[in-house]
């Protein structure tokens, strides 16, 4: 794999962004879900993507590690264009941790095995080293007392924290969160958000698709609002969430921030 051939110099000079997306289009059949997205996440930046359901924000996130194939456009991860069909995806995917709405823990493996499996298979760590490192990560998310449990025995919030530990154990450079708290009971959301906040304060590069406006306001460096497959508006949290310029953004924020007043 010749990395030199796939490395592009970005518009921002020699230092490549963690994620840079240029004119991304994605269609499912005849329906266009993403219509020309330009998007950027810098190193150590936390970007929250918000927007109504069906706006394409999850699809955008899933394009970043190519769980969805883009129809056209470019996606650069650390300067490497992952839309290039010749690029070897596995080493790039292992730098990108992903946390899913449905947790997707492996139900046939214990908590510990969930966190060690990819370390040994992909990174070639020895069993003992992987175990030690898994315990460190599980401790970070407050789950080190459940190492021998199976996912089915855990609550949703506990499963999601294990899923975060599983991703962190791979030492990712970027973490993607796809509505990580949307499938949780309300009283369990806080624990998961706290873990994500800790991660942000550890300077992790994060792209977070979320409906949690409070989290976006307090933790994000930048908030991006999407609707109908477009990036409508982006800015620092205070500006975007409190004095949005676009009518579409204002309308959305009114709906989510004051749902009871209608």
């Amino acid at each position, binding site marked *: 794999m010749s990395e030199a051939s796939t490395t592009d110099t970005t518009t921002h000079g020699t230092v490549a962004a963690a994620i840079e997306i240029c004119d991304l289009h994605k269609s499912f059949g005849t329906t266009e879900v993403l219509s020309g997205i330009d998007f950027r996440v810098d190193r150590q930046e936390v970007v929250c993507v918000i927007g109504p359901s069906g706006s394409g924000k999850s699809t955008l996130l899933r394009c970043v590690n190519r769980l969805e194939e883009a129809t056209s456009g470019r996606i650069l991860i650390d300067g490497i264009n992952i839309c290039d069909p010749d690029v070897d995806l596995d080493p790039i995917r292992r730098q990108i941790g*992903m946390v*899913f709405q449905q947790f*997707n823990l*492996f139900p*046939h493996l214990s908590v510990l095995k969930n966190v060690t499996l990819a370390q040994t298979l992909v990174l070639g760590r020895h069993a003992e080293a992987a175990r030690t490192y898994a315990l460190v990560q599980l401790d970070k998310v407050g789950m080190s007392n459940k190492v021998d449990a199976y996912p089915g025995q855990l609550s949703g919030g506990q499963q999601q924290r294990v899923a975060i530990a599983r991703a962190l154990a791979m030492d990712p450079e970027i973490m993607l969160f796809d509505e990580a708290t949307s499938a949780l009971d309300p009283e369990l959301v806080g624990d998961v958000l706290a873990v994500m906040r800790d991660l942000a304060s550890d300077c992790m590069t994060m792209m977070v698709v979320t409906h949690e406006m409070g989290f976006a306001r307090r933790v994000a460096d930048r908030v991006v609002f999407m609707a109908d497959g477009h990036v409508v508006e982006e800015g620092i949290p205070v500006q975007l969430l409190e004095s949005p310029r676009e009518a579409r953004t204002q309308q959305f924020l009114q709906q989510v921030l004051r749902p009871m007043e209608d």
Partner: protein
Amino acid sequence: MSKRARSIAIQWGIFAVGLGAVGAVLYSTVSWAKLGDAYFRWDVFKAQFPVMITEGVVNTLFYTFIAFTGGLVFALIAATMRQSQVVPARWLATTYVEVLRALPALLTILLVGYGIKIAFSDYEIPGFFNQNYGKGGLALALVAGAYMAESIRAGLQAVPKGQTEAARSLGLSSRQTLRRIVMPQALRIVVPPLTNEFVLLLKDTSLLYVLGVTVGERELVTIANQARSASFNSTPLTAAAVCFIAITLPLTYLVKWVERRTEMRTR
């Protein structure tokens, strides 16, 4: 009497009256003495053993084993081919599955059993395939493979897509994902239908009697039927029935036990 107790009493009443009526009809119409003499002669029953076990049970299990292992191989190949990117490979596998499921097992046994010798008449057929073991085993394996291919495909599809996505996003290759994540989960889903197929196969070995009756290769039903015509008494059939029940029933319960155990571990 409470409403519930009355309803239960009525159900018992219906059961007793029904049983009594059927019993009375059977008692007055069936020639019990003749039936008992034909099917339940203790001396004839005893005379079936040990051959019925040393040859019959042993061969029945052996045919089942050949057919099941062969069938599993065919099924895995067919299930993989049905997910292939190569379209003709998918067609071929689908044709195999659909055709063999459309035919009665007995016809497949006759087709394969008599067909092998003619198809390879230019060659010296190795002993195994000249025997019922090879011919019958292959025929049953083809049948079982078609049914099991469907079960395996359903099992693979029942594993949520998110499992593959999670594994791939951790950097596992597609082969590692299949082997470590998808297969183990699919296997658990597939074990009950496959053991069910095993039991069906065990019973279908009885159809192999159409391929001939060489002593030594006979399974339970062939032995029983031969003994029946030789002794002018049907008790050998009863003996074969007892043997089948002795194999099949414990197997069914074993499967239920295994199922419950795997469920407890994952829940």
